[in-house]
């Protein structure tokens, strides 16, 4: 099929135009409906995907900046406009709500009706929870409960144990040092390695690693001696206990996000359920497929067995979520074993050819990729800076941006992890959950709408912690069973006004956290009680714990400064996935102890560390900068071999 035939096929479905060459809406390169012609601007590769079969499992390998969302959006629109069945539909699954909203908008462009319920556009999680795990999970676990509502309550992996003493009912019953208790919500099962992992904060270790830790082993050794039985407390015994702990967690109706995937797999093990869902959704399109964990891929495999056709759209080179068991080798194997055909998008519309080449060399991609953005600086599209001090190099970057007329707001400094990010940021990020009331008061006083919205959220968060009636964070934790969202906002407003009006409560000048908590506690609780007594049946403040969080007692209360600084923003690489910037500076740590943050590891790892650097290096349109510690000649050669030029003042 030549390209105009493909375009015509699309225009017939999407625009009701029988011949795109004589499109009545298109005149002087302008489409009356969409400004530019959405169909004509598609490349041949994109058209091939959009018109690809909806009953052949397909992997669309979409390189960075290839207009993947644009293609997926039009594909969704094309399939939905062509859909003829009332009882079944297409599911388009993304990883974030924003991405889902984007796809939804694209579909809405061409699909004039309200999207009918047989189609689903939303996040992968909401699909798995809503159609599978929450729906049928009670048939596997949690079935003994006599409640009418057998929903699982989702517990965050990183939930604060101290505020949730009930979690002590769900610990692994195995001898371990007191500080190392394992809670059910910290455990997740990685299907790729068939092993349990323990998450705490940003750290994840496997159960075996945990078991082998010296202090754990020491404790086991002592117990074995004491009980004179060297066969006690083997690893398999720990495994059994972990399973018992998890099952009781599930049977009581709790689950983590990862558990829900496992529960979904259990549900889909039932052939009837699997077939019905597949019949309901014969076509499932998945965005950012490289972020699918092995368990999530198993869900898709089961749906495929049930009869669904799966389209995976993504870029293996951008797989940077190994900590949640999303591994490119697992995806590759999945694609090979389940008879997927592969299509490609190899045109990068974001970056210049130079930037594309540099990142391609870094990642070792053998297929050709085209950079379609016009170069502004030619050879100097990719620069490396050498630094003594990380903060100076950012200064340097800013001055260079001013020199070459790039708006600072359109540029970004990237770093691997959040500690390094905090080090580089001039404006410190604060952990609001520590002192929600203090921050809420400070933000409320600014009278700035966006700050005040944050203030509402913090005070709402605090009240939820005390009332234990959960609500949605985007509704300021409104206990929706008890009052309406707008009433709740008014209550929060009154509380904040009263808190700000009280001079003792709202005075933060030169006092420590502990003295504030001491003097303000009673007043704060009183104000909150006054405004919430009609909402909650019992007095929530009577049992409220409101004291200085550990480790902050003697610190001075931090005053939030809100001057909008004109500096370049600093962000972690993971947070900028899928984003575009005019200019990017990727900052390496000083030395190799920074692991994934250190530039030599970017080059040598060839695994996830390299992919993380690849993701960062494919963000800029016109200017890619690496900021590296002082290099020797050999190191310089390595960097220049990638195609970087040295920054000259």
């Amino acid at each position, binding site marked *: 099929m030549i390209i105009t035939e493909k375009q015509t096929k699309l225009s017939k479905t999407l625009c009701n135009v029988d011949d795109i060459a004589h499109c009545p809406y298109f005149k002087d390169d302008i489409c009356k409906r969409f400004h530019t012609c959405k169909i004509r601007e598609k490349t041949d590769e994109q058209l091939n995907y959009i018109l690809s079969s909806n009953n052949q499992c397909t992997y669309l390998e979409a390189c960075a900046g290839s207009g993947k969302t644009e293609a997926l959006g039009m594909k969704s629109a094309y399939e939905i406009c062509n859909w003829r069945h*009332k*009882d*079944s539909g297409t599911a388009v699954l993304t990883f974030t709500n924003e991405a889902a909203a984007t796809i939804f908008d694209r579909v809405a462009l061409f699909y004039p009706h309200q999207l*009918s*319920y*047989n189609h*689903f556009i939303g996040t992968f999680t*909401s699909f798995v*929870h*809503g*159609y599978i795990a*929450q*729906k*049928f*999970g*009670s*048939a596997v676990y949690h079935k003994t409960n006599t409640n*009418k*509502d*057998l*929903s*699982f309550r*989702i517990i965050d992996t990183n939930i604060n144990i101290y505020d949730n003493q009930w979690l002590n009912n769900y610990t692994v019953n195995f001898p371990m040092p007191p500080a190392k208790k394992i809670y059910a919500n910290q455990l997740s099962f990685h299907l790729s390695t068939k092993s349990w992992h323990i998450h705490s904060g940003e750290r994840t270790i496997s159960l075996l690693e945990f078991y082998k830790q010296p202090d754990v082993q020491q404790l086991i050794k002592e117990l074995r001696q004491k009980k004179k039985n060297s066969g006690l407390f083997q690893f398999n015994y720990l495994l059994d206990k972990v399973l018992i702990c998890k099952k009781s967690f599930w049977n009581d109706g709790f689950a983590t996000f990862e558990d829900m995937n496992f529960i979904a797999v259990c*549900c889909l093990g*039932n052939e*009837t*359920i699997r077939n*019905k*869902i597949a*019949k*309901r959704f014969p076509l499932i399109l998945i965005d950012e497929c490289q972020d699918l964990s092995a368990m999530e891929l198993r869900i898709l495999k089961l749906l495929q067995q049930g009869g669904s056709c799966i389209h995976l759209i993504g870029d293996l080179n951008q797989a940077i979520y190994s900590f949640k068991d999303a591994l490119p080798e697992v995806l590759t194997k999945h694609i090979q074993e389940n008879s997927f055909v592969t299509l490609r998008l190899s045109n990068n519309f974001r970056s210049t050819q130079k930037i594309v080449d540099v990142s391609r060399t870094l990642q070792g991609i053998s297929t050709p990729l085209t950079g379609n953005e016009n170069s502004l600086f030619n050879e100097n599209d990719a620069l490396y800076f050498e630094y003594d001090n990380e903060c100076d190099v950012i200064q340097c970057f800013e001055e260079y941006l001013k020199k070459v007329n790039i708006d600072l707001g359109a540029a970004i400094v990237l770093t691997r992890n959040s500690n390094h990010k905090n080090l580089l940021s001039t404006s410190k990020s604060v952990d609001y959950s520590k002192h929600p009331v203090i921050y809420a008061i400070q933000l409320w006083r600014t009278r700035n709408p966006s700050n005040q919205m944050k203030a509402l959220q913090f005070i709402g968060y605090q009240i939820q912690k005390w009332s234990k009636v959960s609500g949605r964070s985007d509704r300021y934790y409104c206990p929706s069973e*008890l*009052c*309406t969202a707008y*009433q709740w906002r008014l209550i929060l407003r009154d509380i904040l006004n009263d808190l700000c009006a009280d001079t003792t409560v709202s005075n933060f000048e030169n006092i420590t956290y502990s003295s504030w908590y001491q003097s303000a506690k009673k007043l704060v609780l009183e104000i909150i009680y006054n405004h919430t007594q009609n909402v909650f049946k019992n007095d929530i403040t009577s049992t409220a714990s409101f004291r200085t969080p550990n480790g902050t007692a003697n610190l001075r209360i931090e005053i939030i400064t809100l001057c909008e600084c004109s500096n370049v923003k600093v962000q972690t690489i993971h947070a900028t996935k899928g984003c575009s910037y005019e200019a990017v500076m990727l900052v390496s740590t000083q030395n190799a102890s920074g692991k994934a943050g250190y530039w030599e590891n970017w080059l040598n790892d060839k695994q996830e560390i390299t992919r993380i650097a690849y993701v960062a290096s494919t963000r800029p349109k016109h200017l890619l900068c690496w900021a590296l510690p002082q290099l020797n000649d050999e190191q310089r050669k390595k960097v220049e071999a990638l195609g970087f030029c040295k920054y000259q003042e």
Partner: protein
Amino acid sequence: MYISKLSLKGYKNSHNLSEIPLQRGLNILLGENGCGKTTIINALRLILRENESYSSLNTDDFYCSLDKSYKDSEIEIDADFSELTDNETITFLTWCDANFNAHLHLSISENISRPGYFKRKYWGGNSTASIFEEDAFDRVECIYLPPLRDAESKLSNGKRSRLALLLKKQYGNNADSLVDSFRNFNNRITENADGQYKEIDMIKSTINTKIKDALGSQLGQSINLQFSEITFNKIIENIRMVFFPHSGETNIEKFRDLATNSLGYNNLLYIATVFSELELIKDSNIFTVLLIEEPEAHLHPQLQIKFVKYLQSLSESLSNAQIIVSTHSPVLASSVNINRLIHLTEKSDRIVATAMYDKIFGNTVTLDYINRWLDVTKSTMLFSRGIILVEGIAEAMLIPHLAEIVLKNHNKYAVENGKPAIGDSLDEMGVSVININGINFMHFMKLFANFDGSSGSNIPIYCAGLTDRDPGKDIFPTKDSTPTCHNPMKSYLDEINQNEYTKLYISPLKTFEYDLGIDNTVALATALKSIWPKKTGTVLTKLTKIIDKNGEYENDEDLSKDSQFIYEHIEVVGKGIFSYALSQNINDNFTVPRYIKEAVLWACGGILYDHN
């Protein structure tokens, strides 16, 4: 699929969980007033989102205790759907559980900040956190026929007109031609091309001139005169039904306005209109629930029977429709198969529903017997609060009179002993005396009790069976003797008495009349004498003698002989005539045999006779 169970909590009279089993096809809900028939129909309307159910909810629908000290803050209504087809499991996937039975839940609470406004939350399956597709409601049609107080208004034109609703459905998306013909007509008026409408045109230009004169061309407006607004809805709502009192009339001149028709026929015209709606869905795969409240209103019995037979055949021809009818018409109840009946009663703040299809009678004879003999008179038992089953006309006529004596004495005794008094007649207590015409009332008793191999749920109404000892034709036992019982019901006595709601009472000596006679020779003889066909003769002499004895006997044999004499001569005049005469002679001195006292009190709410 069909709704197999409806559950309510916190709604109307149902504070505790009420579960109502329903079946495929036709369901007839019946029971006394206030038992929850309308509650069930309205709950179904709410949960199925019937069009007008939204406006019908109000604060009083939340359960409130009788003394008004307690009020429920939440209404919960749940419907279970069974036997979904393969396609339906896909359509209603988000309503299904893992066994692919569908569950629909609705909870309603009053908006705290806006009293009178309600929050409704619908969810499906077993989990509120799972996805619930509201659009699946598009695949459920709920048609509601309210109890007809005023069929005429429903049939006349206007927004709420049933006719308009039907026409809208029929037209679907093809409304253009109708609108066009009206538009053309309007255009002809306004253009007045051939001068046909010059009067209208003149008035129009006169008004326009006056407007211009008064307001000037800057501030003025202009008007047009036309037939009516020409939107589809307006046209449809203006179509009226007219009628002619016999079938087959086509001359449009002869049709008249509905206001001149009888209430009952207007009701039927209305129902016919709604049934035409069913024709539209006949071929579609949409699950349809038809709710009909008290269709008997204004219909004479023959029409009621015809109507319910039609419903039954309709439910058989529409495989995807479920019809739920509430009624208190014994005519309706007695003209369908008993399997279709669902008996309702209110007990301890909940609705107790007994589905007859749920009952296993143990043998086919019983089912056939009930279906054959549950006539209008007998089906009144389904609307009673208590029942006394009797063998014949004599009991049926006399028990209500005897009951007055029993209740009077009971209340006197109750008051003396600090117990609550009850009503002083069977009518007041809502108790029916049902004449079975024979001793076959074991069949009917199975509706209330399990014995002789029957099982399943029982209608929770106190039911007393009153039967004769039948020691043998020629045996006339003496007072206080215990003759052998040859009544076949005796073999079920223990089983029946073990049930919660039933008791069987067997006369201690022979038959109802004989046993009455033993204790009341004077009264019976007086009654018999008053209706004896001859003015002289041995019988009259003998009766006078008995009356003269004034109930005083030297030995039991003499008493039994007199009783026998009366008994044998009652047969001559006929039990019915005799009973009427006796009923006129019953006064407070009449001695009611103990087994009748027991039966009366049992039927009046399960009271056990405990004094002498």
